Structure formats: structure tokens, C-alpha cells
């Protein structure tokens, strides 16, 4: 019984290592036209057609941090990815509420004149 438990633990370690190595090596390389899958054989590797999986894809638009082991969902276009405003100002504020965007036409802060 003890042997079986030790073997199961070792097997878990093996599979975790394998999945981790896979994630590190191939997980985020999804460059266009480059196969990100490993295979066996001397035949040329076919290109992965669009829509087919080639490992978990990174989303360049993600600027958020999250907790958990689940894949982070991509931020759809148009959704905020951090406090931004339309005239590019970075405003500092106090509180937990989302910072409202500065409407167009809002006067820019005056630069201090010397």
C-alpha cells in the first residue's frame, strides 16, 4: 500500500514536470507560421491551420494580474485593461471605484510656467 502511494506520488511528479516543461517550452510560442508542437518522425511538419490549437496563446492585450491556475481569459477589444483616459493622462486618485475616463475636450492640466 505504501509502495503504491509512493509510486502514485512519483507518477504525479512525472506528469507535473512533463506538463510544466511543455508549458515553458512550447506554451506561449505561437508565432505565425511556426509549429509550436513537437512531433516524431523525419517528415516535414505541416503548418497548423488557423483555428487549430497550438498551445495556450498569450494575449498581448492582457495587462491584468489574476490568481488561480485557470487560463486568463482574453480581454476583448474595447474593454478597459487598466485605468486609462482618452487624452492619455495618468491620474492618481484615492478609493476602490474605477477611475472615470476624462471626456474629450476636457482641459488639459496647465503646465507650470516658469
Amino acid at each position: 500500500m505504501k509502495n503504491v502511494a509512493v509510486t502514485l506520488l512519483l507518477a504525479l511528479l512525472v506528469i507535473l514536470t512533463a506538463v510544466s516543461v511543455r508549458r515553458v517550452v512550447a506554451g506561449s510560442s505561437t508565432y505565425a507560421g511556426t509549429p509550436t508542437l513537437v512531433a516524431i518522425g523525419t517528415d516535414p511538419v505541416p503548418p497548423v491551420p488557423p483555428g487549430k490549437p497550438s498551445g495556450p496563446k498569450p494575449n498581448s492585450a492582457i495587462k491584468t494580474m489574476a490568481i488561480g491556475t485557470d487560463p486568463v481569459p482574453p480581454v476583448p477589444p474595447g474593454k478597459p485593461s487598466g485605468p486609462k483616459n482618452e487624452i492619455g493622462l495618468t491620474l492618481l486618485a484615492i478609493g476602490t471605484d474605477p477611475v472615470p475616463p476624462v471626456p474629450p475636450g476636457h482641459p488639459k492640466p496647465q503646465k507650470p510656467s516658469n
Partner: protein
Amino acid sequence: MNSNLASHLLQYAGILTEAALLYYLARIGEWGKRRGQFLYLLSLLAAALPRAFTLYRYGLSSPQYFYVYWGTDLLLVLSAFLLVCFFFRRACRNEGKMWGFARLLLAFVFVLVVGVSALVLSHKLSALFPYFIFEFNQNLYFACLVLNTMLYLLLVQIESTDDQLGLLVCGVGIQFAGPSATLALVHLTEAERFAQLLNSLAIPLCTLAMLLVWAYALVRVKDSRPKVVRPEKAVLAEVTTD
């Protein structure tokens, strides 16, 4: 153009080497003793022929070649796992207790790979073939890489005198670790052109390198595996009958 030529050269060199090795094993009549290698070489050749035909008939970017390639890859990954099992068996030839442990470990690893890969299905039931095949192939491939590394460390640990097995395991190591290392290079260099070119050639190149190492090991290195220790009872019975 040059990379196409190189990939075709590697493809034909691979098919020729596989066929030559199979012929050599059959000629010396040791295919029964080396079932693991024979099975793996047979799978490589069995996968290479439909792949070559589909590539010639439909082209590299065709869906036919895509499905044939990744479908046959399943066969290859499964036979690679079996090969690693045969190597474990050969390494633990005189270590009955260790073989019992290794056998259980290999079974657990296989079940876990199937389980982890099946988890993906719960999200993507609509595209069963590509997702499951990809997940299963990739997970089993990397599991074989880890197991092969473990086997090499085990051979060093038990100070194995079976040089041929050591070379065969190194050959499989080239096969598994080469493409993984190249993919990591692509990742690190953010897919520079040279890295991309290297990556497209890495898989066939590493397979060919493995076949050449195997050819050297089978032809030039003597099979110095230790003989099976006979049970004491049988020896005692022989002595008493004499």
C-alpha cells in the same frame, strides 16, 4: 527553397535509415530480443509511408496531410511510450523489485496522461479530434522525455554495464529533447528567422540523429546485457539431480 530541399532530404534519409535498421534486425534474427526497437522502427516506417504519399499527393498545407501527420503521430507517441517501457524492463532485468515499482509507475503515468488530456475535452467537445490528439500527443511526448531522463539517471545510479542500452537511451533522448530545446530557443529569441528555420528542421533532424545513434549502437556496440540470474531453487535442483 533550400529549407524545402533540406526537409525532403531528411525525410528520405529517415525512411532509408528506418528500412535499413529494420532489415538489419530481421537479418540477424534478433527482432524478438529487441521488440521495443523493432516495434518503434516499424511504427516510424508505417507512419512515414502514408505521410510521404499524402505530402506528395496533396501538399504540405493541405488538411489531408495535416490529419494524416497528426493521426500517425499518435501511433508514434504510443510506440515511443512502449519503447521507454521496454527500456525500463531491460534496465531492471536483474532487479525484480525495481521492475515492479517501475511497472506501476509507468502504468500510473499513462493513466494520468490520459486523464489530464481528457480534461481538455470537457471544454471543447465540438473539436474532439484535434484537441484531444494534440493534448494527448504533446503530454505523452513530454512524459516520455521525463521518463527517458529518469531512465538515464537510473542507469547511471545502478552503474549499468549495458553500454548498448545506454546509447539507445541517449538516442531517444536526442529524439525527445532536441525539438523541445529548439522550441525553447524560438521562444527565447522571439521567433527570429534563423530560430524558425531551425525549428522547422529540428524534428526530422533529431529523429535522423536518433536513428544514426541506434545504428551505431546496434551494429558496433556489443550487447553486453547481464544474463538473467537464475533462481536458487532451480540451481539447487540441478545440483541434486547431478
